[in-house]
């Protein structure tokens, strides 16, 4: 199992990505879902809400931080290292066009840094700049990524996993039904967004994933 360099504990194998539909005027689905996690396995939670202002993200992340989460659960902020630092989050998830990771590491040495990658080449760059994990996708067809063309597929996932020493999370159309095929290709874990859009069946879905990710 891959050790988290910073925390000396294994990285969780399930990465939840927030819906991107948080609306500060209408309650928070993310905060409601985080409260449901208690009693489940540790996971990683990426707060990715590009429609929010920095102030709204700060308020949301502060509230998320106050929720009692399963031991080892890691809260990550998308892109904004400054907001992660301001709220005492565990790490930052960087898109491919983010500021350079080696420079961000200097301002947040205690943070976990993950990188979205879409090719073997960008995985190599991310590994060289000191990423702690990679997120690769879309592996399968997913409505949110159709505008970018065909999914990358399992074969490319496998190739990427063989060419990096970092833990790779597969994203894009991942379900409890196909998660095992990603692990078979060498993925360390799986990430999901669409499946968590609905609060109905949320816990059941996580439990299904956990049974496959932690056999």
């Amino acid at each position: 199992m891959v050790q988290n360099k910073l925390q000396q504990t294994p990285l969780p194998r399930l990465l939840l990505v927030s819906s991107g539909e948080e609306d500060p005027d209408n309650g928070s689905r993310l905060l409601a879902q985080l409260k449901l996690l208690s009693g489940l396995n540790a996971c990683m939670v990426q707060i990715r809400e590009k429609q929010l202002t920095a102030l709204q993200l700060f308020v949301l992340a502060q509230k998320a931080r106050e929720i009692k989460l399963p031991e080892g659960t890691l809260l990550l902020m998308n892109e904004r290292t400054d907001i992660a630092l301001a709220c005492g989050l565990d790490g930052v998830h960087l898109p491919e066009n983010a500021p350079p990771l080696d420079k961000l590491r200097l301002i947040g040495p205690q943070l976990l840094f993950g990188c979205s990658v879409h090719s073997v080449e960008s995985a190599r760059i991310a590994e060289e700049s000191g990423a702690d994990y990679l997120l690769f996708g879309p592996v399968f067809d997913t409505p949110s990524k159709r505008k970018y063309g065909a999914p990358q597929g399992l074969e490319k996932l496998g190739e990427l996993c063989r060419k990096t020493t970092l833990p790779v999370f597969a994203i894009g159309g991942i379900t409890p039904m196909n998660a095992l095929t990603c692990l078979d290709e060498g993925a360390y874990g799986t990430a999901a967004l669409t499946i968590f859009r609905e609060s109905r069946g949320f816990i059941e879905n996580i439990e299904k994933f956990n049974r496959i990710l932690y056999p």
Partner: protein
Amino acid sequence: MIPAAPFLCVITDEAFCPVTMAEQALRGGAAMIQLRHKTASGAQLFAWAVAIRNLCKEYHALCIINDRLDIAMASQADGVHLGQNDLPAEAARKVLGKNSIIGVSASSAAEAIRAEKAGADYIGFGHIFPTTSKLKGFSPLGTKPLQESAALVSLPIIAIGGINLLNAASLISSGAAGVAVIAAVSRAVEPSRAAREILCAIKESQR
């Protein structure tokens, strides 16, 4: 830290290359450049920030980054400028430490006082006059609230919004330590010269 009054701050215009614009403004005597671009990627912002910071060093001017502390820290810029929808100044101060400059936007005396209490180093006050550079949800303030705020806070105030060669001096006499412009420099035929002329006008007003 903050330049001696009266000084000129030039904010980058999203329609032009921010690095080119910063260089033109610095040649015209701007003492502060604010990199402001709401849609560029983090990688792009970082590259611009490094280039502008290096130029600012050369010209002994300050490089301020709008909204993004991460970009400011990673590029070793002098500080950040925070709008009312950005990170609160108190939280920003904890992250940045006491050596970085924090500017906060205010559009009323109450916001200016709050910014001062929150640990800001300067206040960006506006918009004073009608402006086309940013979409604003309220009418221009005029110079009266600026005068009030200048009397109530001890921080340097940079007036912003619709400032040009003709009205710049009135803001210094209303208590502003500096003026910030976008279009008056970026849309000028000769941006460096436009910056130089505004600077002369505000210096003249102090004689």
